[in-house]
Structures are given as structure tokens and as C-alpha cells.
């Protein structure tokens, strides 16, 4: 709480109204950008608006979607995780090796989830238990995961069969790839968890005001730990999808997912300062980035331009966010 806030009558309410209009604009930004983007690409490439292409987009971003969903919980609590990419690679190695050795799929899936949860607990222990800033802790674990993957890989590419056939994006339910349903289920579950349960409220409360959350009796360490475990399990699941989709695990597997996951969450409009956001917004950001990466190529732009687009969108999204915060601070007359 800033000490220098004060109540007034009508002007504050008027300002609040202005602010809610801005917030509304902020929420509409992503859908509008998405529509613009889709229209643009449809005009630029005749192959963009085809069912095959949408299936490609969906299957290619399913693993990323799972990570981004889990990461959203962490970010709402003002944390971050930069180790997800190599965690996917590391678990992917176990998955691929397990399948190559002909282990039962259900066992492989379980192992992937368990390793994911262990990784989540490890990150959680460092950030929650030992109060290391999450960016520093996960920077460290990311390096460790990378090295572990390298050591396990040991110069041998592991070719993976899909754990379950439907995980590779080949199997369809109706016209849609089965993985889409998996993603939808995960997002629906996390959305309900965040919006309809006491746990979800605790997540927002911690992100909004840790001290007030403690005062309200929320077990902060437990809530944060659970979020890391959820993220870990989703990373494990994502690793199954990833190895099924790519078909091979190498030393660099998964490395590009880290920043893309963070970008999806942020572009979606979840604030890295905590307290605000939702997995649905993340889904919007994710779709935006996935469509962008796909459409840019189809429109004939060299892939080297990808980063320019992603960078600009991140800056745009975060700038609008910042503008809202800035205006609201001005309206609140706080220092």
C-alpha cells in the first residue's frame, strides 16, 4: 500500500470508469490482433486457411501449450521458470529411451510424469524452500538439466515412437487431432482450478499481495510448491508429446521452448508482476505466436524474421499493459 493515496468522491469513480475501459481494451487486444493476423495471412497465402495447415499449427504447438499453461500459474504468483525447455528435453530422453526399449506405454507415461513432478519439486524447493529468486534458481537448474540431457544422450540420437499413437498428432477425433482435445482438457481444468477453487484464489492472492495472503491464512509455501508440481507434471506430459512429434531426442531438444513459453504467457497479457492473468489469456497468446510462426513462413517471409515479429508483439503487449498500470497509478494519486 502506498501511503499517499486518498479517497475522493466523483472524480475517482470517473477515473475508475476510464480505467475499466482501458482494461477492457487491454483484454480485447489479443483477440483483435489475432483476427487481424489471421485475415492478413489468409490474404497473403492461399495455403494458410486450409484444414491441414491448422492441424499443423495445432499439433506443433500442443507441447508448448501445456508448458505455457503450467507456467501461467507460476507467473501469476510473480515467479518465473526458465528451465522448462531443457526439462522437456531431459524427460523426452527418458520417454524416447523407454519406448525404444519397448516398455509399456503406460509405464513410460507414468515415468515421464514422475520425473516432471520431481523436477517441479526441485525447482520449488530452491525457490520456495530456500527463497532463491526464481529467475536465478531456474537459470541454474536449466544449466543442470541441459548437462544431464547431454550426459544421458551421450552422442546417440534416440529415435522415439509415440508413447500413445494419438500423442503424435496423427490420430484424429472427428476432424481434429486428438492432442487438441488433450490441450483443451488441460486448459479447461486449469481454468476451473484458477477460477473456481480455493486453491486458485490463493494463487491470485499470493500474486496480488503476499503479506495480505499470509494474513488471510493462506499457506503460501504449499500453494507455490503445488504450482511447481503442476508445471512439472505438465512438462512431463509435454515431453511425451514433444518426443512423439519430433521423433528424435538430441542434445539440444526442447531448448527453444523456454522462451516461447514465457513469450506466450506474456503476450497473452498475464502480468509478470503477479496477481493478474489467466490460462485463457495464455491460450490466446500461444495461438497468436503459433499462427505467427506458421503464417510468416507461408507468406514467404524468410524464417529469420520470426524473432522480429515475436519481439515486437511482446513489446506491444507489454507496453499496453504498462500504460494501464501507469494510468491507474496516476489515477490513484500514489507515489
Amino acid at each position: 500500500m502506498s501511503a499517499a493515496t486518498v479517497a475522493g468522491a466523483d472524480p475517482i469513480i470517473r477515473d475508475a470508469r476510464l480505467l475499466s475501459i482501458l482494461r477492457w481494451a487491454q483484454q480485447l487486444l489479443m483477440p483483435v490482433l489475432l483476427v487481424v493476423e489471421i485475415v492478413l495471412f489468409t490474404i497473403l497465402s492461399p495455403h494458410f486457411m486450409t484444414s491441414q495447415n491448422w492441424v499443423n499449427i495445432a499439433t506443433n504447438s500442443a507441447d508448448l501449450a501445456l508448458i505455457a499453461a503450467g507456467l501461467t500459474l507460476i507467473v501469476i504468483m510473480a515467479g518465473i521458470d526458465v528451465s522448462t525447455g531443457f526439462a522437456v528435453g531431459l524427460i523426452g530422453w527418458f520417454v524416447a529411451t523407454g519406448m525404444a526399449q519397448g516398455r509399456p506405454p503406460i509405464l513410460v507415461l507414468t515415468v515421464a510424469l514422475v520425473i516432471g513432478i520431481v523436477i517441479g519439486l526441485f525447482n520449488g524447493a530452491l525457490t520456495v524452500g530456500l527463497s532463491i529468486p526464481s529467475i536465478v534458481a531456474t537459470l541454474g537448474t536449466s544449466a543442470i538439466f541441459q548437462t544431464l540431457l547431454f550426459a544421458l544422450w551421450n552422442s546417440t540420437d534416440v529415435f522415439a515412437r509415440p508413447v500413445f499413437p494419438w500423442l503424435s498428432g496423427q490420430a484424429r477425433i472427428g476432424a481434429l487431432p486428438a492432442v487438441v482435445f488433450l490441450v483443451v482438457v488441460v486448459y479447461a481444468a486449469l481454468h476451473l482450478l484458477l477460477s473456481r477453487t480455493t486453491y486458485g484464489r490463493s494463487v491470485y492472492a499470493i500474486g496480488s499481495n503476499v503479506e495480505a495472503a499470509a494474513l488471510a491464512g493462506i499457506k503460501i509455501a504449499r500453494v507455490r510448491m503445488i504450482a511447481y508440481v503442476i508445471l512439472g507434471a505438465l512438462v512431463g506430459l509435454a515431453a511425451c508429446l514433444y518426443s512423439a512429434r519430433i521423433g528424435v531426442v538430441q542434445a539440444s531438444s526442447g531448448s527453444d521452448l523456454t522462451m516461447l513459453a514465457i513469450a506466450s504467457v506474456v503476450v497473452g497479457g498475464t502480468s509478470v508482476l503477479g496477481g493478474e492473468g489467466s490460462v485463457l489469456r495464455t491460450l490466446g497468446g500461444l495461438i497468436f505466436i503459433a499462427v505467427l510462426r506458421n503464417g510468416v513462413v507461408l507468406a514467404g517471409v524468410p524464417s529469420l524474421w520470426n524473432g522480429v515479429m515475436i519481439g515486437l508483439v511482446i513489446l506491444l503487449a507489454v507496453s499496453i499493459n504498462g500504460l494501464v498500470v501507469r494510468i491507474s497509478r496516476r489515477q490513484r494519486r500514489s507515489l
Partner: protein
Amino acid sequence: MKKLTGAVALLASGALLLSGCSTTSTSSTEAGTTAAASADGVKVAFVSQVEGIPYFNGFKTGGEKAAKDLGISFTQTGPAKADSTEQVKILDGLVAQKYDAIAVSPLDPTSINSSLATAAEAGVKVATSDADAPDSARQVFVSQASDADLGSTVMDQLAEAVGKSGEYGIVSGSADTATFNNWIAAAQERQESAYPDMKLVGGIRYTTDTAQALQEAQNLMTANPDLKGIIAVPSTAIPGVAQAVQNAGAIGKVAVTGFGSPKTAAEFLESGAMTSTVLWNVEDLGYLTVWALDQLVEGKEFQASNTVSGLDSPVTYDAASKTLLLGKPTVFTKENYADYDF
């Protein structure tokens, strides 16, 4: 509670660290020294472009075989990811360890030049192998096959598979690897002169890893429904491109060929997603490189044609460009890939 978590985390990170170290000491991939330590103490080394991929493993197998035959010691090492700075560091480290001769497969033609010069001044015999740095102090370049040969061979393979006409795409590795660019240029030249009915679409797609290669290949196929073939350049792109064709159910419709070790391509040669892969016998290249280093240490001159005991055919030497040429590229197909272990 807090103390406990602290202790657990500490233990865990310690364990991770230990496991990392122990794996290192047991695995001999990046710094294995052949058991046959030499009597005269000649030590030679090779710096690869990237540690441990099957291709350079094959190189090492050949090198170790040669070292054993020649009675010298051989070390192979390289960076974890294709990064010329790392490569220079490693090279300097080897010079500090007083190797008698060192060969490098440079990631780009200029970065290592000064280090090679320093090494040469220090009395170390230096060579390039697999990739060249023409303006450097290297005393010999051990070439697998000429860029022109490689480029035209892969294009011939593709042309044959697609019936000499139609659209094709190229998925390459990182844009700054000189050898990849040379091969691609040669392949395009061959296409323009020999297969005028074929057409490159989508430009050259640069990728950094398998996942990206997969997406690029997918997008190429979507954007160009008439696409008939794809050339995948490095070993990282091959599984991605082939997987994309396989996932799209386009086996037989889109032909894939490229530059990659037979082991990497094995799955896809078997499934038919790849028609062939072009490379050379990298074990022989490793063998030849170590032999050449030994020749340098011994102070022997190369002849226009050299008979190397471990290799089947004689090796030509071009004195003008100081290049030893292994021979023609090898084409690996479903029929013969199993004969090679790299």
C-alpha cells in the same frame, strides 16, 4: 521444515553434480585417448565442429583405428554446440597441452586462423579436415570430397527421385556454417545446368534444431502443395524433415534426400521417407586425417597420389591448394546403410 528442504536441495544438487562428473569420467566421447599409447609419444588431436554427434563419432572411430595402426595417441574433442568461440578455446587448450599435431574442422573459414597461426609458431603441425580455412596457417586440408561433387551428387539423387522436374525445397542448418552454404550453392548450380525443369521454392530455410526443421518442412509442404522433394542439409535437419514427411503421410509423394550420416537416416531410409543420403565414408576421413597428421609430425611430404594402408583406394594430393582428397561422395540407401556404423 525449511532446514530440511534446504538439506534435501543441497544433497540433490550435489548428487546431480556428482552424476554429471561421474558420467564424464566414464564416457570417453569427447576426450577419449586411444589405449595404445605410443612408444615415441606422438600425440595428435582433432577438434570437431560439435561434440559427439554420430557423424563425428564415426570420424573418431576411424581416427582411433589409424592411431592404433600407426602407434600414436589420438584425442578428439569439440564444442557442445556449434560455436566458433568455443572451438577456438578448445584449440588453444590443446596447444597448451603440447600436442604434436592438431587438425580442426572449422565452423567458419576465419575464426580459428589466429589460433592456428599461434599453434604453428609454437611448432605444432596444424591441419584442417572435414571443413577448410583456406587462408590459415594449416599445412594441409584433408578433404572428404569436393563441395562441387557433394552438391551435384545430392542434386542428382533428388532429380532421380522426383523424375527430373518439379518443385523442391531446401532445409539447411544454421546460416553461418560455411560448408553447408557451399554444398547448397553447388547443388543449386547443378540443378540450374542439368535439371532446368526443377524449381527451388521457398528459398533456403535455415534452422537451428530438429524441431525447427520439422516445422519448416511442414510449412514448405503446406505452402507448396506441388512440392516433390526436399534436400535436408545437416544431420540435425534430416530427422525433422523426414519426420514431417512421415507425419504428413507424404511418403512416396515428397522425396527427401540430404547430407547426413546413415545412422541418423536409418529409420527414414527404412520407412521410405528418405530415398537416400549423401555423405562420404567418415571413418575413412578420420583415418586419413590421423594418417596425415602423423605424416606431418614425421616430416614426410605428400605425393600426388598416396597409398594409405588402411584405406581401399589411393588418396590424391593437390599441392597448389595443399589438399588431400579422400575421393568421391558415397550415396547411402536402404540397401547399404547397415554396412556403416556412423
